[in-house]
């Protein structure tokens, strides 16, 4: 649905993004992660035809962004970093304006507007002037604006910024419900958000893509060893040494309490069965044994705090 092919964007001598390539399949939610200034917004602006790339091509729904910008623009709903709101218009006036601007047929404007007002819970403020709304409502009006013409592709730049926790959950549910019928790219710096809603994430740092995969795959591939957390009721004094004597265990360290210990073993080995049998045989009272995986936060930090020129880490099947 969206194909970004080797795009580079330069502002004078400054290179904002370099050789960025990825694609998004129909119905997928792609999370775009990266520290501030990594090039997320620049990439999104290029996809939405707001600005052209210095090099490379972008295709949306089969149309080239440079050759057929109008076709592309009509198929994209875009929520920029700061929602583009006209302070002096009321919510309904604004949504009607955007609908018409996006060439939504006149017969569909009022039904679509009723639909997005319902979807985003704007019913109570629909006749109020946008300039008087709170930040959370402004953000929701911004989202309504992106959805009004029912575009097949949605590009959302930090869609949950400025919302309270309850609203964030609602908007995440909304975004999830849009997947399938819509193709989405959303940027965020909240990593749990990406884990919660995205099928795939692209991590970008200093203008380069440093990783691209599903959140689960990313964290498993960043692991150097398998880790497990073990909790027993009555650990003996030499308990850690005894655990370390199990064949295949590389290292054992004390956890947060004397009862817990972190067991590290070779990558690709599953020792859970062996360890549980051992613990039960020792009669120390097995309470808990669970594998530990890296959170996306850890992956993100590992990737973005690496050396100056990060090497792209990609799943071979994605290329």
């Amino acid at each position, binding site marked *: 649905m969206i194909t970004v092919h080797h795009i580079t964007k330069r*502002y004078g001598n400054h290179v904002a993004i370099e050789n960025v390539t990825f694609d998004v399949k129909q119905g997928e939610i792609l999370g775009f992660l990266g520290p501030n200034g990594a090039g997320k917004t620049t990439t999104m*602006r290029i996809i*939405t*035809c*707001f*600005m*052209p790339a210095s090099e490379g091509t972008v295709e949306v729904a089969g149309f080239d962004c440079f050759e057929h910008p*109008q*076709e592309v*623009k*009509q198929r*994209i709903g*875009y929520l*920029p*970093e*700061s929602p*583009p*709101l*006209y*302070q*002096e*218009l009321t919510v309904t*006036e604004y949504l009607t*304006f*955007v609908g*018409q*601007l*996006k*060439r939504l047929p*006149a017969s569909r404007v009022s039904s679509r507007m009723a639909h997005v007002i319902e979807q985003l819970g704007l019913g109570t403020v629909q006749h109020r002037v946008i300039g008087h709304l709170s930040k959370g409502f402004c953000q929701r009006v911004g989202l309504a*604006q992106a959805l009004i013409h029912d575009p097949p592709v949605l590009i959302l730049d930090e869609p949950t910024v400025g919302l309270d926790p309850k609203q964030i959950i609602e908007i995440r549910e909304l975004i999830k419900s849009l997947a399938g019928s819509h193709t989405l790219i959303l940027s965020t710096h909240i990593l749990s958000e990406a884990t919660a809603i995205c099928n795939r994430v692209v991590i970008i740092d200093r203008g380069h893509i440093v990783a691209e995969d599903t959140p689960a795959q990313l964290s498993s591939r960043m692991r150097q060893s398998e880790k497990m957390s073990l909790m027993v009721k009555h650990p003996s004094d030499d308990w850690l040494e005894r655990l370390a004597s199990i064949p295949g265990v590389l290292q054992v360290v004390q956890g947060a309490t004397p009862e817990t210990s972190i067991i590290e073993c070779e990558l690709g080995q599953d020792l859970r069965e062996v360890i549980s049998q051992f613990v039960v045989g020792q009669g120390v009272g097995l309470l808990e044994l669970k594998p530990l995986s890296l959170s996306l936060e850890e992956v993100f930090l590992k990737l973005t705090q690496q050396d100056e020129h990060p090497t792209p880490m990609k799943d071979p099947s994605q290329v």
Partner: protein
Amino acid sequence: MSPVNTLIAKELRCFVVSPVFYVVGAVFLFISGFLAQLMVVNAGQQAIRFLQMQNTYAQLNLNELVFRPIFRSLDIVLIFLLPMLTMRLFAEERKLRTIELLLTSPIGVNEIISAKFMSVLFIYLGLLGLTGLTPIVLSFYSAFNWDPILTGYLGLALQGAFFLACGVLASTLTENQIVAAFLSFGIIIVVWLLGGLGAMLGDTTLGTVISYLSFVEHSDRLIRGLLEAKDIVYYLSGTVLMLFIAHRVVDSHRWQ
């Protein structure tokens, strides 16, 4: 509604809720009414003096005594008022980042520029139309030739369109509305002063060319009731040129 009409309607909606529009409209209408009052009183005094001196009833030329000075003064008033109407158009869109919505909508930059220009032109022509009350009211009390009044209004409309196009250009150049207003004063006044430079150079080829570039001689002919194609071509080409440069400026922002 097509996107262009939608944008025009939205701009007009924003004008009617903007205090700037009311202030500019009120000042413009007050000045034109005040000028008309001054000129009519002045013409009345001249009529009385004429009557005392010659002891005959003479038909005064209202076109020369009333309308020509009004048009000449309004020409200058426009230089200071019209930039106030245009300063908002692009500067505010850039400041509030709403330009991102327009440029990512299926509407071309040329359509955005023409919609913005048309909306402010409608507003100006509406205000100009209201000053038409002066000749209409005077026509009940006196007789005068309507032709120079119509060409005078055509001149004001064309001159206004040109100033507005200069203002649209200035507004695309900055995010700051005040800067945009002063930039358009600057552009218009430079074009105005070219007339003086042309006159200084006299009847040389360069002098004629420079005089032609200024609106002074063109508006003068229209106010005097002379309808010539070259004056109309001057205003229309000037307006189109300014809008074309504005188009290039908006487009170039996308490349930077």
